[in-house]
């Protein structure tokens, strides 16, 4: 597999993982607020 192709795949995976982590942070935040009856 050419190097640029490998880099592209790695970048895609990293962006996906970053997005999932950010979504998890937001989810934990809102679950906490819901459990505390703030929202």
């Amino acid at each position: 597999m050419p190097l640029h192709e490998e880099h592209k795949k790695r970048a895609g995976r990293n962006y996906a993982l970053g997005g999932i982590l950010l979504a998890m942070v937001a989810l934990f935040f809102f679950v906490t607020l819901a459990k505390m009856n703030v929202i």
Partner: protein
Amino acid sequence: MQTGAPTLDQNAREDYLPGAGDFFALLKPRVMSLVIFTAVIGMVMAPGDIHPVIAFTAILCIAVGAGAAGCLNMWYEADLDALMKRTADRPIPSGRMDRQTALHFGVALSTASVLMMGLSVNYVAGALLLMTILFYVVVYTVWLKRRTPMNIVIGGAAGAFPPMIAWAAVTGDVNIEAIVLFGLIFMWTPPHFWALALFSCKDYKAAGIPMLPVVAGEAETRKQILIYTLLMVPVSVLPWVMGFAGPVYGITAIGLGAIFIYLSLSLTLKKDVKTAKKTFFYSIFYLFSLFAVMGGEVLIGRMT
């Protein structure tokens, strides 16, 4: 110093790095969509209130848990998948991903979804989700699938749990109505998969999976599809009879059930691939329609 040609695993790690799409494919997104749909309807049907954020979290956990179970299934069955045309292009048999990565991904997602469900929704829903994942991976994939033609009859229970988990997410309990929803999908699973097996028979035979048409023959499979359909239709009417689904649902269940019986009956008479495919695709439409009408009627009833 290393000598010799690289192994398939080395090739997979060095040359075929899995992309984000391969990880997504491990979650069996098509199966997941049906799981999400039935879980949402289970949640709508359950009496009581649930905070929208907690409801979203519960559905997310069910979806991720189902995906994790699918991923562990692909990890365990990579050798069989490689032998079947329908599954040969999956990430592991195609060489885009090594088995270890899939195992780690599946275990991580299973753990995260069960913990999240137990801690943020309730322990009953968390325990049910754990049971579902274990049932699908251990009972169905590891134990039954390669051993008995009844694999999908018992293993089908795993696919029937999502509305029950969603119900438990709302009520914190499992009662008879949730069990009826479970029973409907449980009874639907054998005719659905056996119809698929009728036209994928060669694939299953090549992989040595003892699906009913391979072991008992196509005639017996057609007979069993009819028997299970005849048993399923009364179960599908139960939500209306028991009063937790409305009359529109009741009429729909009878009408769609009659068509299902007609198709199963013509399957026993015509014995062709076309009718098997027709029955298979109709079975998907049938379950989607039943749950859509069931949930839709309850939602409209609440709004008016």
